[in-house]
């Protein structure tokens, strides 16, 4: 897995697993603190939504986009 992927996996933010996966290879926590705001760091470590909730949210979003296109 490359570093670029891990940095962008989470909607262009780092994957929430990144700190753990890279800790043996570099000072990852310092890197994250240097490159992301406090708000972004909070967002990174938020657990993903439960699957069914994500699906319903995505359906609503896609329906709205379809309506706009129609």
């Amino acid at each position, binding site marked *: 897995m490359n570093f670029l992927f891990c940095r962008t996996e989470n909607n262009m933010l780092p994957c929430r697993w990144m700190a753990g996966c890279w800790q043996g290879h570099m000072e990852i926590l310092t890197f994250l603190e240097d490159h992301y705001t406090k708000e972004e760091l909070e967002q990174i470590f938020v657990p993903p939504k439960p699957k*069914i909730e*994500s699906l*319903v949210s995505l359906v609503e979003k896609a329906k709205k986009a379809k309506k706009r296109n129609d």
Partner: protein
Amino acid sequence: MEKTIYDLDQKDMPTHWYNIQADLPEPLPPVLHPGTGKPIGPEDLAPLFPMELIKQEVSTERWIEIPEELQAVYRTWRPTRLHRAHRLEKALDTPAKIFFKYEGTNQAGSHKPNTATAQCYYNMKEGIKRITTETGAGQWGSALSLAGAFFGVEIKVYMVRISYDQKPYRRIAMETWGAKCVPSPSPDTKAGRDMLEKWPDCPGSLGLAISEAVEEAVSRDDTHYSLGSVLNHVLLHQTIQGEECRKQMEMADAYPDIIVGNIGGGSNYGGQFLPWIRDKISGAKPDMRVICCEPESCPTVTRGLYAYDFGDSVGLTPLLKMHTLGHGFIPPPIHAGGLRYHGMAPIICHLYELGLVEAVAVHQTAVFEAGIKFARTEGIITGPEPCHNLKVAMDEALKCKESGEAKTILIAHSGHGHFDLAAYERYLSGKLEDYAYPEEEVKKAQAEMPKVPA
């Protein structure tokens, strides 16, 4: 002669799935709609799933018939074998009787086709021509591609681009079964185009692949979407494993004292133990133990809280009660594949809270050590997820050695690890490390959880 394999005749294959919702002492807590805050209803899921699956999602009927046309497809690999692990028992020098139900012998190599074929069948019956889905490394995409080939449904798989480029074998399998596999982000959807415009070399993510698959399903009348874990109807389809196993254990004149399985999205283990747990609920087998195994580095059930957790940092309405380690949990390195998935199946969380199942967390080096022992005794190279079960089952067998008890242990074995050899390589070369999440960190993460009345 020691009997090692218990094969069920195809004419005895179960004809119904078992629905635990009929027997739950307390119903599942509702899932709420993110927009309205009201329970999610059939109309919310209709753009994605056929009505028959939506009915199954909320059904409280105990038995749901498996259509004959689907049974015919199941019969291309089912019933799967129940094995008695005599060689492992001897290696452990235990009086315990160890059985395992192995789901790795079908065309796609895992338990996933049990639901992939069912979902494809119901879509086909309702006139759906195409199904979209997302896949990371490709296990689910493979199962659905196989199912599409069986039922003549076109499958489109959005595969995370980095996996598409770097892990081609499952992609080639999907294409061999006739699926269209595209790297995500793709130019086929607005979500993909927006990303490619901003960043042409984007390596993709599972979240983006889901967005693309859902967007395409919602925007076309002939297309639906399919998911391979977590949802109630997915676990329902998997119960054919446990129903078969009940008959096979009867052939072996045995009944499990302990059932061991790993929990992530819950589909394999749920399918295996739900058919047994009705005996515990009814009081017929109150002492049977059902053990869920999870990684010590991500101890969601063993050390998490069962609560409504906000899904995002801006604090929108919490929608689903589940086990969580809280927002501050920073996951450590782990090589257990799907077991680091956050979204535990709601049914399994609920059964744990009701005290009907227990949970154990194990370290990953011990997990792979067990996988190696199993490979060298029973011959199967096990996927990283079910290796957790092997470890816990071996621990229970060794307790029997100490106590002299000849308990019967049943292992849910979801499939082989032929596409996961990199994790074995890390173990064999001594590069895997254990990590236990510190208790103070767990407490800190949980202290930051929202205060919401349950």
